[in-house]
């Protein structure tokens, strides 16, 4: 008889459904995947090294450019870590505004995930619908910071500037538009037989494996483990909000689809609560020499101007030591490990990239499955290559 041979297929880095520049080397027997090896690094930017060479303030823009689908979550993680290092307590209003904005970011990130995931599985029009709703969230971004994507709005000890006067209007527009849009998605996808067949029972990962692979975020919760850092180790005042943590049952792509839709609903709830209960107060903590003084003061007060000048040019001295702050980003546990040697620049900034570590489970998820399931598995992990490669 003929000798049995396997075929090695290279997928990517330029491939429409790899969400950027991921490359997967697949060893196939017919159409069955024997082994899948993700090859990453095609977007390696050296962000960690770059941040080591910048002052603490000036490293914030680098964080935006990692997970570019959820820039505010990245800002928040970094700023919370620096605040922990410096022992800064921020005003209540800042906490609430941060929660509101990061929850909008979660919806924004999930919308892009939903659009691209459905696009990969053949539902092309989903992308057009999700980007419609995404524009309304981008309007909020633009209203608060002036930038559509890379807002750098969350700063150490507070926010970049006061929330705009018409902030309510923009957020209420999101609160009105996104639920309507979500009804459209459910109509289009939840009863769509093709979509169901391609996601149900595909890319399964058991709870035990999910823990063993250190998965986090929807990947972990999809397998039935109720772990969310917003509840487990609350940060930025999440303990004040009322929301549920959805979990999946068997950990397949369909579970994670339902789970992320539910997460978007819960995020809308949090946004509503944060908007209704937003306290009054300053938008930055008053810590002279560390936190930038408000811009109005810089223009009229001598001390504020000196502080501003010193922070921008020299930065601030930090205590020696290392801190780790993790937040629940849309993709999972986003952690910043900042080690300080006492100087005005970080000694080392390590980012715990949720999508890089989640991607580690890809070989496990597709082994023995069909080639077309690889596309579904890549989509359901919700990777963003800027964060995988940094």
């Amino acid at each position: 008889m003929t000798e049995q041979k396997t075929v090695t297929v290279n997928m990517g880095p330029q491939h429409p459904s790899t969400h950027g520049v991921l490359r997967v080397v697949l060893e196939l027997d017919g159409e069955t995947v024997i082994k899948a090896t993700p090859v990453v690094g095609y977007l390696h930017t050296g962000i960690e090294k770059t941040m080591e060479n910048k002052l603490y303030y000036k490293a914030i823009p680098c964080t935006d450019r990692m997970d570019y689908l959820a820039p505010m979550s990245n800002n928040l993680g970094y700023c919370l870590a620096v605040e922990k290092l410096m022992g800064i307590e921020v005003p209540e209003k800042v906490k609430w505004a941060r929660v509101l904005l990061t929850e909008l970011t979660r919806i924004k990130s999930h919308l892009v995930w939903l659009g691209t995931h459905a696009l990969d599985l053949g539902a092309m029009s989903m992308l057009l619908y999700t980007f419609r709703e995404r524009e309304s969230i981008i309007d909020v971004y633009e209203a608060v910071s002036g930038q559509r994507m890379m807002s750098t709005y969350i700063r150490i000890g507070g926010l970049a500037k006061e929330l705009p006067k018409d902030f309510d209007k923009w957020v209420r527009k999101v609160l009105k538009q996104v639920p309507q849009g979500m009804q459209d998605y459910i109509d289009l996808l939840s009863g769509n037989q093709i979509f169901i067949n391609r996601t149900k029972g595909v890319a399964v990962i058991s709870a035990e494996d999910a823990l063993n692979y250190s998965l986090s975020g929807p990947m972990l919760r999809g397998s039935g483990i109720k772990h969310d850092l917003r509840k487990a180790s609350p940060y930025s005042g999440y303990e004040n909000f009322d929301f549920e943590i959805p979990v999946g049952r068997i950990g397949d792509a369909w579970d994670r689809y339902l789970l992320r839709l539910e997460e978007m609903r819960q995020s809308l709830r949090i946004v509503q609560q944060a908007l209704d209960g937003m306290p009054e107060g300053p938008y930055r903590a008053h810590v002279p020499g560390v936190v930038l003084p408000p811009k109005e003061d810089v223009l009229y007060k001598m001390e504020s101007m000196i502080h501003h000048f010193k922070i921008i040019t020299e930065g601030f001295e930090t205590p020696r030591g290392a801190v780790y702050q993790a937040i629940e980003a849309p993709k999972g546990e986003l952690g910043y490990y900042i080690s300080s040697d006492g100087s005005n620049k970080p000694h080392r900034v390590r980012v715990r990239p949720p999508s890089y570590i989640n991607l580690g489970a890809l070989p496990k998820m597709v082994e023995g499955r069909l080639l077309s399931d690889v596309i579904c598995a890549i989509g359901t992990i919700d990777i963003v290559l800027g964060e995988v490669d940094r």
Partner: protein
Amino acid sequence: MEQTSLMTEKIRDFFSSRFADAVISEDNFRDQQSFYVKPEAIFDICQTLLNDAELDLKYLSDITSLDWLGDEEAEKGRFEVVYNLYSLTHHNRLFLKVRLQEDNPRIRTVSDLWAGANCMEREVWDLMGIDFEGHPDMTKVLTADELDGHPLRKDFPLTWEQPKFTWNKDDPPEVIK
């Protein structure tokens, strides 16, 4: 909060009762409990923790590394590897830190305990050049194939463009030759 401080005590007891020889020092900066341990003991500690139902520090959150070149800390060893463990039931974190010497830094892998450690250790090797003994696939992961050296080391220059598409005019620095 009370539960966390209770767990802090329990972890301290765990180390003093079972790994008293392996622990070098304890650090509690900003309420974060970390232990400096001897490199040869790391695998045993991780394995014991993984089977310890009471402490339940079974979730490996992260593995990372630091380079202390040019700092006073460097006497204890130039490289530092940090294991970040989390408890899903008690919600507390434990940092295990290991110091490694400058020449030929190597440590036993934990990728046979946690499958997730595989990609984390690979990244540490690629960016910091710390070898994990027994790791199934210790190859480059993020940096370009042509790149020599490990970018996150402090003696690796930030802006030196090493591979092909470069307009660098100066001679390469010492470390690359």
